[in-house]
């Protein structure tokens, strides 16, 4: 039996205390939002029109789906192609690769309000797109580009080189090898990354309200304004006139995030198993 010193015991206690605080934070935030919000979830919350009397989240939900769809259309091919270049084509450690790495890390570190500011002055004012689906989707797609690139890069690197050698040995070119052999093997990992990116888009507010805008109706076309669930939540919380709906919207938002997290880790587990 090893001799225990008092300081060992103090540190041991501190680790338990800290994880206790972490669990308390989790229980408090998730528990509070769900327990207070779920009872307020009602059919009227999903009415087609959002009015001053009934702030339905339906238009915001539609706006969220549109922003998610559009930004994925923009960012997913770009992110996957970039990662393919970095992993399958570029020479390791070339200057180009280094610059791409550096800029990707930079993009990942920029705060969302700075994205909002940039989207507002570039897409909104300079290109004249105003507050619209287009401005919102382009801004958000830059935000999620590093996420998708990193997930794809990691999944491509995880594909064993023997796959590639086998394919080359059978006479396939590089493009055919990448499309037919490497990408299918990497798909679950890429998917997990895309789902995380969806979570990030849904949770985004600061970059959304200055690009997509924050009006409580569904966008009619690409150059029309709208809002997302998070922006809706933000507005309800600040107005403070509909506490019940605010509670319910927070709960819906949290449930969506929980669902997305579960889906992503389920796919990630599938990757590990295969």
């Amino acid at each position, binding site marked *: 039996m*090893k*001799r*225990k*010193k008092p300081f*060992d015991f103090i*540190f*041991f206690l501190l*680790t*338990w205390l*800290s*994880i206790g*605080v*972490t*669990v308390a*934070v*989790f229980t*408090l*935030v*998730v528990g*509070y*939002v769900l327990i207070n919000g779920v009872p307020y979830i009602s059919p009227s919350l999903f009415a087609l029109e959002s009015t001053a009397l009934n702030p339905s989240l339906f238009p915001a939900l539609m706006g969220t789906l549109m922003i998610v769809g559009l930004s994925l259309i923009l960012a997913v*091919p*770009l992110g996957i*192609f*970039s990662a*393919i*270049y970095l992993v*399958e084509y570029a020479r390791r450690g070339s200057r180009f690769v280094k*610059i791409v790495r550096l*800029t*990707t*890390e930079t*993009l990942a*570190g*920029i705060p969302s*309000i*700075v994205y*909002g*500011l*940039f989207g507002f002055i570039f897409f909104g004012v300079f290109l004249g797109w105003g507050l619209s689906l287009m401005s919102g989707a382009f801004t958000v797609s*830059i935000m999620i*580009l*590093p996420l998708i690139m990193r997930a794809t890069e990691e999944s491509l690197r995880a594909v064993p080189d023997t796959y590639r050698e086998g394919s080359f040995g059978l006479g396939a070119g*590089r493009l055919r090898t990448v499309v037919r052999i490497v990408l299918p093997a990497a798909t679950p990992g890429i998917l997990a990354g895309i789902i995380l990116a969806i979570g990030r888009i849904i*949770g*985004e*507010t*600061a970059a959304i*309200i200055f690009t997509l805008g924050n009006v409580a109706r569904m966008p009619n076309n690409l150059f029309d304004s709208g809002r997302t669930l*998070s922006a809706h*939540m*933000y507005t309800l*919380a600040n107005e403070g006139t509909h506490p019940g709906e*605010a509670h319910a919207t*927070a709960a819906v*938002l*949290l449930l969506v*995030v929980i669902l997305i*997290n579960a889906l992503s*880790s389920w796919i990630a587990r599938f990757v590990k198993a295969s």
Partner: protein
Amino acid sequence: MGIRSLISLIRRNKERIAKHLFALSASAAIAAVGLICVFLFMQGLPAMWDIGIFNFLTGTDWQPDWTPPRFGILPMIVGSLYVTAGAILFGVPTGIFAAVFMAKFCPAPLYKILKPAINLLAGIPSVVYGYFGMVVLVPFVRENFGGNGNSILTASILLGMMILPTIITISESAIRAVPGEIYDGAVALGASHEHATFRVILPAAKSGVMASVILGIGRAVGETMAVRMVAGNQAVLRMPHEFIRGVRTLTANIVLELGYAYPGDHRPALIATGVVLFVFVMLINTLFAILKKKEGV
């Protein structure tokens, strides 16, 4: 040239075309960073110049409605520093000890529950944290510390909660990355599990743990919505002992006023605020990159 010959031309050269398409895509990230820098700096720097860089950075009055308007962001710089320091105070020790627990003391069945919970904490949207802060933390601070509850203290507690998962996740993987031989060696020399963990493993994981702290700081400085919802947002220079009073951060300054700022001088002043924030965050991220390289991850 007919369509057919064009198709066959593409077919014959598809390898080369694909390669160039992929390389072009990879340049998108470079283009994006270039555009962001150019547009922020092109509009922010002249504004700073007009206001006077010294007046802008050290001015204590933010009064866009006065004639002439005053654009001094010292209260916001100090405000961002206060809430970030507060977040470090609440989040960092808890995060590091919790990471040690996750890596070295956690029973396997418990780990299976805790790990997804911490991942979920990282994924909760900032408006949900902000809302929680408004309805739970603000009344809590008001009743226990006084003031109206929208304060430096409230924002610090909330930010501390928000940076917890970042610090735990990255510190945990840094601690796990320490080679097992180091631990075995310490135990063979007679150290207890706790002693080996805290005196040998943790120092070995130092730069990774530091990196997690710096990433957490970057997140705290850049956080907008949650802080804006609980901090009170008065653009007033506060002293540290006024921690139960309200404060405005750089991020909140932009989000509060960009919506209605007139393009003349108010909007450029907000873009200049964004430039200051951008430079702060870039410095923090550079520090993070240096530490990460040192760790060799």
